């Protein structure tokens, strides 16, 4: 008998394709790759500046390791969404499904949906070809694909194990140490991506070392790129069994976690939102809409908004080095982070319930200016933190250029996001390539200003 999950998912994709039409379906595949081609000129001077002056291959190794860490990290977070917090859990969790089959189908869907990611990584590495040749590029591309698959399967196994860890009283002590202010069970899921990253990065780093040696003339070392796929196959073999023992129970564990989060949410938190003090400085009309966006955005996309502090810190760390090129690297990271996070403006509009648009009077100027301001405010950590670092570590004139450039990027990204959000459901499709081009052009111009 055919696999009912596979059959249902095939039908779902067919209906989605029919609704979107052939053009949008094709664009969904082509745009991420096009964006990678467009970002390539930005990637080259910032991350591949070592080319041609890298006699021991350390630069190549460094960039490959960082790239696979990003791919494995994305895979780990995606796997949490697919296996633990999937939308299908509410449907399948009530049926006598084979959880092993469900887990494999979720991973297949993930591979299908995110296949562009390692391909885009390989495109970003194309500037290796003129200096190191097609062979090294092909090995690097294979490493990207293998490491990503390894990340997916290792992370799947780790997340399924995390369900048992979350429930197991013998882990209570260690989970209490790690949980911070989160429910104990959530600690297992919070740390699972980190553990998956550590486990999957090891074979990926060994493979990156093989590519480095290959670039230095040791052709046989290229065989090491087979290591991550091999680990991927081994991990995949464990997934069905782990899913059969844990997948169903995760529903109850998640219900516990959500109930505890709801209880720890203090009264104050129920009314306050990050940056809501901004509203005091706004006229009443725009202030009302700004407060709505601040509250809804903070409660629905809190981790995304908080991640801007992460972007600011990462960009600041990149700028901290004494290397004169460090502010340039910091600026590139800050600008990329700003353009990525500004996409939240499109998502806010997409999330807006249709009845609001129908029932409530519309004040487009107040609504749009409020949303622009809210987006601009959320992006500020990526402006202020690295600018302060450049001022401390380099000099004030560089810091002023850095500050001006990131502030301008935040303003532009907010405006572009706002413009694309008018397309509602299709806004992200438009925002993706526009943001990629704008980020590339903007960073090239701005880094030119710094150097």
């Amino acid at each position: 008998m055919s696999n009912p999950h596979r059959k249902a998912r095939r039908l779902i994709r067919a209906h989605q394709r029919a609704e979107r039409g052939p053009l949008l379906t094709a664009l969904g595949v082509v745009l991420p790759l096009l964006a990678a081609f467009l970002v390539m000129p930005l990637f080259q001077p910032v991350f591949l500046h070592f080319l041609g002056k890298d006699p021991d291959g350390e630069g190549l190794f460094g960039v490959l390791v960082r790239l696979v860490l990003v791919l494995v990290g994305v895979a780990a977070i995606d796997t949490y969404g697919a296996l633990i917090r999937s939308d299908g859990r509410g449907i399948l969790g009530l049926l006598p499904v084979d959880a092993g089959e469900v887990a494999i189908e979720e991973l297949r869907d993930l591979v299908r949906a995110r296949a562009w990611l390692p391909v885009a990584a390989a495109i970003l590495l194309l500037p290796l070809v003129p200096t190191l040749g097609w062979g090294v590029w092909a090995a690097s591309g294979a490493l990207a694909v293998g490491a990503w698959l390894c990340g997916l399967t290792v992370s799947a196994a780790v997340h399924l194990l995390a369900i048992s860890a979350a429930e197991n009283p013998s882990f209570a002590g260690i989970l209490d140490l790690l949980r911070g202010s989160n429910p104990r069970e959530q600690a297992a899921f919070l740390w699972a991506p980190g553990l998956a990253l550590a486990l999957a990065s090891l074979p990926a780093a060994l493979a990156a070392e093989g590519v480095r040696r290959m670039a230095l003339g040791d052709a046989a070392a290229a065989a090491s790129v087979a290591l991550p796929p091999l680990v991927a196959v081994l991990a995949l073999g464990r997934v069905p069994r782990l899913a059969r023992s844990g997948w169903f129970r995760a529903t109850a564990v998640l219900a516990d976690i959500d109930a505890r989060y709801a209880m720890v949410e203090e009264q104050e938190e129920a009314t306050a939102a990050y940056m809501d003090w901004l509203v005091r400085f706004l006229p009443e009309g725009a202030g009302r809409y700004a407060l709505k966006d601040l509250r809804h955005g903070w409660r629905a996309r809190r981790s995304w908004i908080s991640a801007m502090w992460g972007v600011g810190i990462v960009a600041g760390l990149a700028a901290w080095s004494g290397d004169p090129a460090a502010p340039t690297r910091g600026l590139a990271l800050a600008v990329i982070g700003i353009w990525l996070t500004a996409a939240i403006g499109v998502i806010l509009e997409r999330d807006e319930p249709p009845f609001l648009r129908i029932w409530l009077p519309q004040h487009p100027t107040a609504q749009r200016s409020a949303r622009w301001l809210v987006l601009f405010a959320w992006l500020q950590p990526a402006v202020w933190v690295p600018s302060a670092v450049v001022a401390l570590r380099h000099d004030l004139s560089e810091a002023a250029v850095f500050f001006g450039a990131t502030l301008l990027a935040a303003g532009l990204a907010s405006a572009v996001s706002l413009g694309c959000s008018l397309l509602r459901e299709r806004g992200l499709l438009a925002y993706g390539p526009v943001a990629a081009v704008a980020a590339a052009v903007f960073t090239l111009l701005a880094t030119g200003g710094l150097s």
Partner: protein
Amino acid sequence: MTPAVEFINVRRTFGKVVAVERVDLTLARGSFVGLIGHNGAGKSTLMKTLIGTLGPSEGQVKVCGVDVHAQPREARMHLGAVPEEPAVYEYLTAREFLTFVAEVRGGGDVEEALDFTGLGDDADRLLREYSQGMRRKTALAAAVLGKPEVLVLDESLNGLDPPSAARVKQYLRDLVDAGHTVILSTHVVDTVQAVADRVVMLAHGRVVADEQASDLGPGGLERLFLEKLAQTRDEGRR
């Protein structure tokens, strides 16, 4: 023969809040059980422990002798459920969704399920185009596919239009007469009085009444409900 459902000393807490307190209930096969209670009485929590979406803090829940939490897949083979907020695949038609569920369950008459819920004319529309009421009917149709031994309905008859509600009630009655067990949780007393053989009343997480519906007489359930509610409230004050 093992009972259809057993709640064995089930307790469920959320931090310091006790949602369900020491519930011991055995539901025989071939019975239609109405679970009633005020808002926040613990009905949905108890139903969730039965369908496995929430674990009990203490105690055990069994369906046809199978522990719902220790053997989740085996328990679900005996169980059909419509939760308070049912989920469906938005990008499938009702017919495709029900066919999928029938395949997972290893059988079931999709046309019959569409027919008794009155979804036949809309069966080939995507579920994302359905109203909330139609989605609820779809979830109900999915729950009865393969005629599981135990059917759990959490507030599932609320919001159905009168002809559909009548058709569904008759279908459920036929299932019970054929030896299946239906558990309907609701706060609408009239619905329970109209369909259930046995009424279990929860208040503040405890079972405060467990009666045969035939013993209550016309309007008796509502009187009992109000009386027990007042009684538990007074006990709470003392």
